[in-house]
């Protein structure tokens, strides 16, 4: 069942990221780059999406045994189209990685280093939960920023994802 739980939250993660990315893209380039205030983790919608991409990417690299030192962010992307291209490739890699996991891999202790070189050791399943939860925090900010920009976007509540008919 643990595999089903982890695959479930990752299916949700890809669905909700794409839902909100589409909403942001519909605002146009100017809307995505508009400064929305200092109380957000990142001031623009493009910056917020770039951060979700960056965090997802750094963790996938760690899960594959790498020690990345750079967290990608807003400055790495000219606009939403090049972010989308990079993100599509990342999502494919994530789908291959998550799809390949068995129960034993989920329980495996991962040794990794932070971008500052500090060592950590945690079971892989905790980190798989962390990345989805991290993104939900920022997706909430995106939803509130979209509400300010053009009205509330469609809900990305997890129960809606699970209520959808299975493909």
């Amino acid at each position: 069942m643990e595999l089903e739980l982890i695959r479930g939250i990752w299916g949700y993660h890809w669905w909700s990221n794409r839902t909100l990315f589409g909403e942001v893209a519909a605002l146009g380039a100017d809307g995505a780059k508009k400064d929305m205030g200092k109380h957000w983790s990142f001031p623009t919608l493009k910056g917020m999406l770039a951060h979700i991409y960056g965090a997802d990417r750094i963790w996938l690299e760690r899960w594959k045994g790498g020690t990345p030192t750079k967290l990608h962010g807003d400055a790495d992307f000219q606009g939403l189209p090049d972010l989308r291209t990079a993100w599509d490739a990342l999502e494919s890699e994530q789908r291959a990685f998550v799809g390949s996991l068995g129960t034993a891999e989920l329980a495996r202790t991962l040794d990794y280093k932070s971008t500052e070189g500090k060592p950590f050791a945690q079971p892989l399943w905790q980190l798989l939960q962390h990345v989805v939860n991290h993104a939900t925090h920022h997706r909430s900010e995106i939803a509130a920023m979209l509400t300010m920009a053009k009205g509330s976007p469609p809900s990305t509540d997890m129960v809606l994802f699970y209520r959808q008919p299975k493909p």
Partner: protein
Amino acid sequence: MSVALLGQLYDYHHWANRRLFEISAGLGEAVTSRPMGAPWSFPTLKGMFAHLYGADALWLARWKGGSPARLHDDEDFPTMADLRARWDLLESEQRAFVGGLAEADLASQFSYTNAQGTEFRLPLGPIVQHVVNHGTHHRSEVAAMLTLINGSPPDTGIASYRLTVVRG
């Protein structure tokens, strides 16, 4: 392992809720009842916490076979102190329920009727995860509202929780 996976997810949920509740309550009732503007799901900090409580209570009742017709909200709690007392009880019940789940329960289906009378049938394990994800969405709003009031609150990510509280 899935039982531990959900149990620890709820330890995180309870920790993150308390962390933000305590900071908010420390601001005083006038601040937690102050409308913060339009982009939020609920306009006040108390309203946001009352909704977190309400959703958690609703789903717990559904998991236990009930179909509550009403979602508790801001109006049910005159103060943050009233909400805290009820929430402590709910947290204990929720902990007992999640802690009592066996592997076979997680794969089982449960049925409920929502307030509009529509019936749903969903797998228990995934929906137990839904409640924590729902909480994170609104905790993010609470964090942004607190940032507006008196600066950014401490992080409530799962990684921070594991590394600073559980240490492993």
